[in-house]
């Protein structure tokens, strides 16, 4: 990227709730306006009518790859962009959309006799890396705003962004949050990728691993602990980590 020129940034979305894009509107006025000193938004359907035919420096893609018909649009974005970032859980790991992947009857279950209508087609939810090469991932449901700013800043400075690769438990210890297991609850923090600052246990609820697994999750131990310490039934302990990590589990289809 030319240091004198503003970086050309674009946002795109597939199957998702667009909440990760909305998070940027919560950045506050000094940060958002400050960002505009360094970057230029060239395409962002949710808030802009403008589009571009010129190359894009950084493309942020939100949402999962769920329809073969979306492949061409993903490839087009890849061809136009120097750097592609999977933006948020749906894009990075298929996130919550992949909760349906282990079932086969979701179409009929939802639409009944209308399920065969061609426009209602949907295959398994996959991360966008199943269709195109992805350079970096911003994890989380939603993404962490501070991490977004840091990654953009790193890229503008020609630095390799560092995405944390250790469990959320580390962050709970750092902020001295009492462990959910010590409060007669359960938690996925021990296998979840950190980087969020562990807000959920601090807010009184379990970590659901929305940033996906870290690179070395012990799934057998998780299931055992969910049963023995978390008090979950064998079935719940087995299925618990499907909420955000269905595509990362050993039994992923």
């Amino acid at each position, binding site marked *: 990227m030319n240091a004198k020129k503003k970086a050309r940034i674009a946002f795109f979305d597939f199957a998702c709730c*667009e909440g990760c894009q909305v998070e940027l509107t919560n950045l506050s006025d000094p940060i958002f306006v400050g960002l505009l000193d360094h970057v230029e938004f060239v395409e962002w359907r949710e808030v802009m*009518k403008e589009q571009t035919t010129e190359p894009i420096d950084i493309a942020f893609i939100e949402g999962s790859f769920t329809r073969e018909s979306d492949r061409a649009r993903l490839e087009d974005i890849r061809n136009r962009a120097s750097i592609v970032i999977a933006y948020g859980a749906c894009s990075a790991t298929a996130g919550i959309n992949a909760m349906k992947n282990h079932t086969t009857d979701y179409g009929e279950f939802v639409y009944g006799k209308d399920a065969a209508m061609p426009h209602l087609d949907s295959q398994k939810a996959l991360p966008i890396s199943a269709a195109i090469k992805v350079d970096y991932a911003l994890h989380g449901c939603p993404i962490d705003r501070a991490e977004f700013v840091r990654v953009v800043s790193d890229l503008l400075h020609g630095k390799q962004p560092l995405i944390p690769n250790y469990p959320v438990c580390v962050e709970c210890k750092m902020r001295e949050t009492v462990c959910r297991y010590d409060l007669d609850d359960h938690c996925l923090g021990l296998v979840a990728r950190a980087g969020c600052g562990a807000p959920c246990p601090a807010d*009184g609820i379990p970590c659901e691993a929305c940033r996906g697994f870290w690179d070395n999750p012990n799934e057998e131990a998780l299931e055992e602990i969910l049963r023995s310490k978390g008090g979950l039934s064998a079935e719940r302990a087995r299925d618990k980590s499907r909420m955000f990590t269905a595509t990362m589990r050993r039994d992923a289809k």
Partner: protein
Amino acid sequence: VSRNIAINVHHLTRVEGHGNIVVNVTDGKIEKMQWQVPEAPRFFEAMIRGRHYTEVARITSRICGICAIGHTLASVKATENALGIDVTPQTFKLRTVIKHAENFDSHILHIYFLVAPDLFGAPSVFPLVPTHTEVVVRALRMKRFAHEWGALLAGRTTHPTRVIPGGFAEYPTEAELKNLRQRLIDLQPDLDATVQTVLSVAHKVPSFERQTEYMALSSDKEYAVYDGVIQTVMPDGKKQRWPVAEYKSVTNEYVVPQSTAKYSKNKMGSYMAGALARFNNNYDQLHPEAKKLAEALKFKPLCFNPYMNSVAQLVEVVHTAKDSIRLLDEVLRDGFKPEELVKPKKFGRGQGSVEVPRGILFHEYDYDEEGICRGGNCIIPTNQNHGNIQLDFEALVPRLLAAKEDEKAIELGLEMLVRAYDPCISCSTHYLKVDFKR
């Protein structure tokens, strides 16, 4: 008049989600005018099957990134209804403040970032940064404040953490609540400036009327947003009410070929939900300051102009801020304190409804004796509005053609119409199932 017009807006911009506008006119004859929804469906129903009641709202919140608070509240209310949980008066009031925060937050986003560029003649908010810096900075400041307002009580605004069945998982301190109250009072200059900004471009809001039915939650106690019964007002002003449990008899969802979202209708060919529907149903209960603004704009019920939905949102921006001050005063007066969760008394089927920014939202779930979810259904306001948008198109296009508007003007008029509804298209293609299976 022999005219050919071909409008094909693929993936309409400055709306949440993916929608298309298609209009074909050949030799002056309208061959096609459609509002299409090609958004990828996401099958939330298949996700909540087999999930514990404590997890369900965390999943269904993800239906929408803009109204995640509303989905969380509707979901938790439906679960509480199914589990025989009656929340405390303090929980009811604090959740209403959270609901107000979301409606304020989303309305600010819509008015400033999605609608205003049309009225300022800009393609997006970004060209306005150098020319209208103060307006853009104010918009971002108010958006950030709305986020902090909601997050103080809900933990987060995008997929809240603290709102759980039975009450709250965590609380702010009393000092933080008092600080929020003060910041709502200090908001006045920004509220005044927002009103002035909208007044300066209000004459550019298109005039178009089509009589339709308006549906909203309604309550004898207050301008309903967190709780109430279903009410509709007909073009002749007649109102009728239904219990929330009977929501299916008024929403009547059906599948159409041009949309991955279902459509709805009640007594007429379609109905409208959202800020204008709330305004038309419950005007008398608005805060006096909000009514004063409506009067200054000569805006009164019944209003049949869908473009005025954005103006109704502005009226609600004032209402939500003022009513939150009242609610916080009551909570603080009654002795604010963290409360224990109310425990389930039974497991069965329950419904919940709230007013999200885009209108009335319904959730329903079925739980077995272990508290495991066996089925669910969500009916989203944008689904309820798709049919009304289509019928507006069918009334508006012939009028624009008769007025000899050119293709660009017709296209902009239709884009602005869809944007006025503030559609939340990802929401409307969430797909939860209508029938229950055991």
